[in-house]
């Protein structure tokens, strides 16, 4: 997977979960759960979508690596190598 | 002749530039001008005519045909507290001094932990249109705009020719000024500064609502003519003059696209890897949700600029090309 593809998947997943999110103002290292007001259910949906689109297995322990656009993208890239 | 009074006076781009040099030489003893034929001959394009007589050979220095050496000398003088203005005949020849500009002028401040600023101004001619053939006609300012550590200016109006030199000399970093050869004879009234006199902001030379014509330097007059003709077709074009190519005023570009939702970027350099490419990329990054049509670019044909007049004209961006691109974006 290419970096941009991974980032697009992350962004699309966020948009699916929080349809009114304005990702143009979301910085790559901003914590999106705070910025977009996501609760744990939203986060679970986000994980569900990522898993469905990429086939990457994401466990509870991986949650700390999925907090920003940058680290989520990096996580997907690392797991699809 | 330019006038110091507030009243407007008829002048040319060349004279405005000369007046700016004269003002700088008068204002500060540390300022001197050097370059090929700047003294006795009055400059290859006549910009420094009369300055040798007025300021003497100590401050108006003719140099050998050795760009690397005299740009290096300028850097050394700047390091030692002078405020040199170095003229290079054309941007093509500046490549002989590229090592001095890129590896010394642009880097010394940063490699010395801030101890060695290089307050140097380098002026040079750029661009085609006067049948000077491929070795004197290229537009390589986009290459320089790639380099961190220097500032790159492209005065396109008589006002900017008159008023950009002083802040360039005041800048602690090396500043490159690109004067398009076709502009020297441009004449008009020199009023008080029409746009910003600072070196950080682009200027809207003509406001409009339907399409942004984003350009700089020698292409500005063509864009303004195109805008006039487009107005006759019912298209209200806004013309943005970038003025400073590095650092680029991306905010002004985004603001214009937010008004018009369509952009045509005009750049006399080659399209591939050009400044126009950089501007287009910025629009895609910053203004994606403002775009109502794909960005259009009008650039030179990807050939060494031909000598034959018809071929040269065919290779360069022309008013008709700008009008056609604007129509593609709007229609």
């Amino acid at each position: 997977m290419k970096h941009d593809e991974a980032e697009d998947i992350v962004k699309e997943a966020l948009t699916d979960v929080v349809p009114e999110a304005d990702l143009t103002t979301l910085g790559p290292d901003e914590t999106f759960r705070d910025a977009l007001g996501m609760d744990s259910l939203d986060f679970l949906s986000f994980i569900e979508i990522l898993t469905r689109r990429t086939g990457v297995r994401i466990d509870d322990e991986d949650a700390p690596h999925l907090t920003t656009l940058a680290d989520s993208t990096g996580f997907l890239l690392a797991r699809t190598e | 002749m330019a006038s110091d009074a507030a009243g407007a006076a008829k002048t040319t781009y060349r004279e405005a530039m000369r007046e700016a040099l004269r003002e700088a030489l008068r204002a500060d003893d540390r300022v001197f001008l050097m370059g090929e034929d700047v003294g006795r001959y009055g400059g290859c394009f006549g910009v420094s005519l009369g300055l040798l007589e007025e300021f003497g050979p100590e401050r108006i220095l003719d140099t050998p045909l050795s760009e690397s050496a005299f740009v290096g000398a300028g850097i050394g003088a700047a390091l030692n507290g002078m405020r040199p203005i170095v003229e290079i005949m054309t941007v093509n020849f500046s490549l002989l001094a590229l090592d001095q500009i890129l590896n010394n002028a642009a880097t010394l401040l940063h490699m010395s932990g801030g101890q060695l600023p290089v307050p140097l101004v380098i002026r040079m001619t750029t661009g085609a249109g006067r049948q000077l053939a491929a070795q004197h006609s290229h537009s390589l300012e986009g290459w320089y705009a790639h380099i961190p550590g220097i500032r790159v200016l492209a005065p396109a109006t008589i006002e900017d020719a008159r008023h950009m030199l002083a802040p360039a000399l005041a800048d602690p970093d090396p500043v490159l000024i690109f004067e398009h050869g076709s502009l020297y004879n441009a004449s008009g009234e020199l009023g008080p500064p029409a746009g910003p006199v600072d070196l950080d902001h682009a200027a809207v030379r003509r406001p409009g609502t339907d399409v942004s014509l984003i350009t700089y330097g020698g292409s500005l007059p063509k864009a303004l003519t195109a805008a006039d003709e487009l107005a006759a077709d019912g298209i209200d074009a806004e013309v943005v003059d970038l003025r400073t190519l590095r650092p680029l005023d991306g905010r002004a570009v985004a603001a214009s696209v937010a008004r018009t939702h369509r952009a045509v970027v005009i750049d006399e350099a080659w399209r591939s890897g050009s400044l126009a490419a950089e501007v287009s990329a910025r629009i895609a990054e910053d203004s994606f949700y403002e775009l109502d049509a794909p960005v259009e670019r009008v650039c030179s044909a990807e050939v060494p600029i031909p000598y034959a007049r018809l071929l040269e004209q065919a290779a360069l961006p022309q008013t008709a090309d700008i009008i056609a691109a604007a129509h593609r974006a709007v229609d």
Partner: protein
Amino acid sequence: MAEFTMPSLGADMDEGTLQEWLVHAGDPVRKGDPVAVVETAKSTIEVECFEAGRIGQLLVTPGTTVPVGTPLARIEPLAEADTPTEPEAPAKPARPPRPPAAEGARSTARKPSRRKPTPLQAPTATGPPPDHDHAVEHRGHGDEGPLVRHLAEEAGIDLDTVHGTGRGGRVTRADVGRAAAAARSPARVTPYARRLARELGVDLRGLTGTGPDGTVRASDVRAAAPGPTTPPTPQSGGGVPARASAVRRKEGMREAIAGLMSRANREIPHYYLSTSIDMATALDWMHEHNHHRPVGERLLPAALLLKAAARAAREVPELNGHWLDGRFAAAEEVRLGVAVSLRGGGLVAPVLRNADALELPQLMSQLKDLVARARNGRLRGSEVADPTLTVTNLGDQGVEAVLGVIYPPQVALVGFGRVVERPWAVNGLLGVRPVVTASLSADHRATDGAVGARYLTSVDRLLQSPEEL
């Protein structure tokens, strides 16, 4: 003859706006069928019918706001032969049934389709009016959730034409989304036009583009915008301007919350208790459980906390019920209200019915469904009515403890904060444990502190044996 009236969908509801009829005069209805969509100050709710019968005259037209209790329609008794048949019986396709664990306890599963049962006269030569035909087209799609059906209807998508990727071939939300996207991409749309369409409330479906290759551009969107054509705005747009109805809804919700909470603070003498609970065992168990399951079936700490709160309410019934007419009335079942904050402000508290008896996976899937519909779709009347105890889980918003205001006429509110790592002494040794602060706001008219203490102790004890939750 019975009447179907504007229901009270919460203690704070005085009136409601009938937004849409889901039935026509003459349609047979069974108890529990959704018959109308009602907009309250706080949300849009599908209201169910409490009687079986045949819809008689519709008394109120959509768009009308009426007080609670106003008759909306008459319900006539059914003739014997008219008894509506179970719609899926004859027409059920070869779809495997849903596994009950994940979906069975959804309130919608009681009545798997809101599709109108086919009237007996339907197959006659004249046939029903085209409107009624609608139901027949959907034959075979009984077991999609109400949200999916609602979304499909809104997008004008026939579920029969949609390829289902869900369990047992069920059509999921994502499937409807894809089908809707495919149906509404007649041509390309420029980014600015797409943004403008959102701002002006223009539906891009069916728009004809005048740009190259039929591309829809800003001018096409403006031409399709309702009302006077908006001139091109000179300044760049920041946020999407809120639509009038959204603003009204927001103001209405604020007003409703203000009224109810003022009443609570005025009338209820609150007392507050809180305790810290070691979550190590519960979370270890949950992670182990999740490790063996696909993401869609995983649990969140919230599910464990809600289950423990519901079980404790069963154990301490003095806190589960309502303060009515100067005395406490205990409730028979635990109807656990879950405070859900809405994006853009406000909150609703849909109900997990019999939450104490739900298996954790059921509770989790119901929670997901309720929260999703509270935010994006519609809740049913039965899903917002009469919670007996409400839980607010502000921990998701990052705070460690919440001391809330009780929703009258309930007598307690349970709060959970964020699960945080804290130094914790166990058997004389200091360790780092995940800890949650559980709090209780309770009505001192109904109970004393000792009852509240018993409740929080129960919650703690239940969370120490997660496998039994």
